[in-house]
């Protein structure tokens, strides 16, 4: 559970980013221009700042120089190679190019949070306790016996909780890009997870889409 500042002047984009962050369990604050961003970042400590480069008032790079240290992911326009380089040179942790898929943004945010160890390490739902540092799962007081792939799939589901993931996406995230398996593999692993954790109603099959871990 991380506290994230979203700085983006387009109200809708800002809103969409925040909604997605909230969905996977982060808390957030919104800023719509550079000056507001500096003010918020100075008052509160954030685990991550998503910072648009093109901002009214004060541009993203100037904001970056003015705020106290915090991990930053720059959001740049499609054709701004200069601004990407500039951002990384200044010491940003990553950049993402507009327009982006939500899952991509979440993955990058997750990567930065893991590096700074601000990401979710424990997860509790119903009877299940997941410790991601030790890679152990307890159901009640008993340790559940999960294979490494099952655990990775579980981790992907937890990190993208409340978001429907297609079988292909799950393959990509849990098995890796180069895995040449079939989507049936995903179904099998999901079945096993459901029965081992007693999550038959938590891991929902979404018609025509894939699976979703529903936490709400």
């Amino acid at each position: 559970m991380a506290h994230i500042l979203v700085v983006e002047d387009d109200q809708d984009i800002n809103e969409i980013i925040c909604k997605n962050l909230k969905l996977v369990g982060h808390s957030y604050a919104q800023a719509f221009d550079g000056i507001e961003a500096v003010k918020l970042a100075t008052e509160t400590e954030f685990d991550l700042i998503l910072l648009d480069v093109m901002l009214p008032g004060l541009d993203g790079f100037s904001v970056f120089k003015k705020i106290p240290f915090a991990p930053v992911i720059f959001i740049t326009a499609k054709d701004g190679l200069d601004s990407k380089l500039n951002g990384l040179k200044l010491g940003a942790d990553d950049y993402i190019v507009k327009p982006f898929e939500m899952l991509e943004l979440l993955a990058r945010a997750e990567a930065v949070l893991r590096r700074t160890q601000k990401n979710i390490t424990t997860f509790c739902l119903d009877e299940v306790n997941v410790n991601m540092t030790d890679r152990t799962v307890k159901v009640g007081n008993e340790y559940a016996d999960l294979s490494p792939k099952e655990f990775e799939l579980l981790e992907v589901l937890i990190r993208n909780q409340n978001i429907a993931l297609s079988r292909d996406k799950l393959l990509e995230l849990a098995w890796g890009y180069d895995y040449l398996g079939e989507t049936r593999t995903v179904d099998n692993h999901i079945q096993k997870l459901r029965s081992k954790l007693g999550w038959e109603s938590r891991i929902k099959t979404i018609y025509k889409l894939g699976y979703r871990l529903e936490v709400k």
Partner: protein
Amino acid sequence: MKLKTFIAIFLLILTILFSSVGIVSFYLNNSQINMLKDKSIAQFQTIVSSLDRDIAVLRGRGEVDFYGAVDTLVRGYARYYGRHGITISVAGIRAGGEHAAELTFANRGDGHFILITGRLPMSNFLVNYSLDITESITNMRNIQNALLVSAIVFSVISAAALYVILSSIFKPLTIVAETSREIANGKLSERIPVGSKNELSQVALDFNKMAERVQRQMILLEEEALNKQQFVDNFAHEMRTPLTSIYGYAEYMHKALLDDGEVIEISSRIMDKASYLKEIANSLLQLAMLRDYVPTKQEVSIPHLFDDISQTVKAQSEDVKFTYACNANSLNCQEDLIKSLLLNLCQNAIKACTPNEGIICMTATENASGVTISVTDNGCGIPAESVAKVTEPFYRVDEARNRKHGGAGLGLALCRKIAEVHGAELAIKSTPNEGTTVSVTFTTP
């Protein structure tokens, strides 16, 4: 062309010059030779007749040593004539037989000579006469050489003169050729300098006029292309922003676990964005429709029109003060277009004003030249450098501020178009932080 003319004329001059030099030398040579011939023949005859007479006298005297006496006599003659470059010798021959005088030219190692050999009429002697003509021949050759040299010098001078004359004749043509080449290479601003009045200055004037037209057209085309490109760029940007939002919301709806309230919220945001896009499309369609539009005009009562607009504006916005003053009766126009123009101007004015402080005033005045309708506000104004651009499609003074107000930047472009099809003029006067006046002047034809 210039080179060809030069070569032709120069060859003609050379031909005339050298053929006349040739003819002159030929006649000079002939007459000199003939003169020498005549002179030598005359001398020979004089010598022959006096020698003949002297020999006859010697024979008559009955000299013992006749041949010795003849020899002495001849030597005396030779000494005398030797001073004039003439050599004489005598040889005895047998009597009888014809022996006519014979003239030949000889060119020996030591010079040119005329040789005449002839028989004395009364005695059996043959006289050999030889005249040295080396000097005359050399003189003649010198004269011929002088003629040739002067002909060569003259041809060089005439070549130079010809070149200068031809250059000055061909200069305007060269300038025309060079200028047209420059223009062909893309330097459209090149012109021919028009100097003195002659046959070519009219050509130059016409040429310049043509170049002027081409350049003007090119500038117009370039501007047009630039405007089009700008429009397309802006359009793409205007489309992309709401589409990105729509995609983002739709993606969220597609994947996220939503409750009923959120479904309503997100879908209504998507609908908002879609209707914004529809608005842009409608405005663009209207702009396209107005391009060659002829309005169906009728007399519209201005007080009535103002009443209408006032009601609409007041219903839309309660935090600005809206007043109007009408000093004109009627306007010949298409009512719905003018209404939409004035509403657009009023909405812009509302957007420019600070809530609860805004005062908007709509006025109509009439004078001899026509009716002027103005909308004045006390809002934020337009920076001087943007005033000329605000009527361009998609132009926004301040991206961030206007986006919040939801305009696509097509309103004023539409207003200008509506004014244009009515033959009216849209003028904007603005002072930043004090306010803006937009006036539309309808001139009666």
